């Protein structure tokens, strides 16, 4: 199915990079039915940064897994560039909250993994991977194994590995959730920095309101039981942003408004 026809009929905008349409997901465990998601719809434009925030257990990971093709929706569709996607593919790169580096591969080999799976030659993919290792500021660790890296460094490699595959959409499920507060702030700045240099479209999940405001253009606020996007919230803060953005008046105003909306759901 091609969604562009429908998109053209309802709006004058060009087709979104990522379209999520009316996604529902029911789980049946021991005879009990859990409606994890119901009628979730949103669009992420090309080059956009869309964050989903919501309380723990409201269905954020379930949603992201469906977008990635790792889980199947009970109903509804996910489309990338107007083409419906049901199974996982390199067009939707993912960074998980848990550490998912391949321990038997060095940093550079981890980053080059997707290219190797795609059949790219050794020299070529190493050169390409080098760029992404530099992008996440890990040039000094190209040949290190994951066990030699800190948590923050591991997530930087995971980011580089996802980006090196040039995904149409980058999916991130609370990627900094397991890190300490200081490292998390460094990672947020790094991600802003990377986004200044590389063109990317991001769907980001977090339960940290400040993180969502700092990084996003649009925030989808999820309500629970059943999980749904209850509100969309535009962040009117100019880029480039950095850690200092967090103490600006505009940031604080955004935060106040967002907290109000967040409380009301």
């Amino acid at each position, binding site marked *: 199915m091609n969604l562009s026809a429908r998109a053209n009929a309802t709006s004058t905008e060009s087709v979104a990079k990522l379209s999520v349409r009316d996604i529902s997901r029911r789980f049946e465990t021991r005879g009990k039915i859990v409606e994890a998601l119901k009628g979730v719809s949103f669009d992420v434009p090309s080059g956009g940064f869309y964050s989903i925030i919501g309380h723990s257990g409201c269905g954020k990971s379930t949603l992201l897994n469906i977008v990635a093709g790792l889980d199947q929706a009970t109903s509804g569709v996910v489309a990338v560039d107007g083409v419906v996607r049901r199974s996982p593919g390199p067009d939707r790169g993912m960074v998980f909250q848990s550490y998912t580096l391949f321990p038997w591969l060095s940093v550079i080999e981890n980053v080059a993994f997707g290219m190797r799976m795609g059949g790219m030659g050794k020299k070529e993919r190493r050169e390409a991977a080098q760029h992404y290792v530099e992008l996440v500021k890990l040039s000094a660790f190209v040949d290190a194994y994951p*066990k030699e890296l800190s948590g923050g460094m591991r997530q930087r490699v995971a980011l580089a590995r996802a980006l090196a595959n040039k995904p149409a959409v980058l999916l991130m499920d609370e990627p900094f959730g397991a890190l300490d507060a200081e490292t998390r702030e460094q990672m947020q700045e790094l991600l802003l920095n990377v986004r200044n240099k590389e063109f990317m479209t991001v769907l980001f999940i977090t339960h940290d309101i400040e993180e969502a405001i700092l990084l996003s253009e649009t925030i989808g606020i999820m309500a629970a039981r059943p999980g749904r996007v209850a509100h969309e919230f535009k962040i009117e803060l100019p880029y480039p942003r950095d850690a200092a953005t967090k103490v600006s008046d505009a940031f604080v105003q955004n935060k106040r408004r967002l907290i109000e909306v967040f409380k009301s759901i």
Partner: protein
Amino acid sequence: MPTWLSQIGRIRAPIPAALYWTVAAATFVIPAAIWWLASSSGYVDRLFLPSPADVAKQAVVLAENGRLWSDIGWSVFRVFAGFTLAAIVAIPIGILMGTYHIADAIFEPFTDFVRYMPAAAFIPLIMLYVGIGETAKILMIFIGTYFQLVLLVAAVARTVPIDVINVAYTLGASRRQVLTNVVVPASLPGLVENLRITLGWAWTYVIVAELIAAQQGLGFRIMEAQRFLKTDTIFLYIAIIGLLGLASDQIMRRISSKTMPWAETFDR
């Protein structure tokens, strides 16, 4: 109080290498000293407890006439052949069991059933079917180790984190690629660790097989020595089996740390 002393009782805290190896050496030296004292005290019959010197003398005799080396050679060969065969079959099947539920359904319940049958009970059948040649001994080791090993390998493959598998899919890997490029390498350290443990069982079963039907080998010689009341030979051979086990264990550890420098290890 020296710092190493306070380290001893702390859970998983490393201790100095010198301390580690001193304690390890003492666990060999102390029993040997007790043995020497007991045998030279005169309270225990020489026939039941030969002295370390008697055993050493016997070692020299058997080494010089070559019998020791040929016995070691035969037993090592049988362990190697039987265990390699078990590993070659158990590793792929175990990985499939830990990866696909259908493979689990095919192999797991049946393996669980067979694994509780004492391997030694198969000896009469083995002798009936394949005689008492080398095949019988290798088959004995195979039966003794395969059914344990395959379940251990399956358990290892099952511990590969699902997020690690999923991230490979999102990087464009096909199912086949995920199996060969993710599940297999991710299982390697656990797999080698379990090979190391089951290799010990292979040593048990080679002796069992040789006690019953063999003309040479460590187990056979122990049986023969019993007939002639040569307790010094029995002592010698039991110690040698222990040493060979220890040596193969160390070789496996060495291979494992050399070929997999990336693996997380328990620090000494």
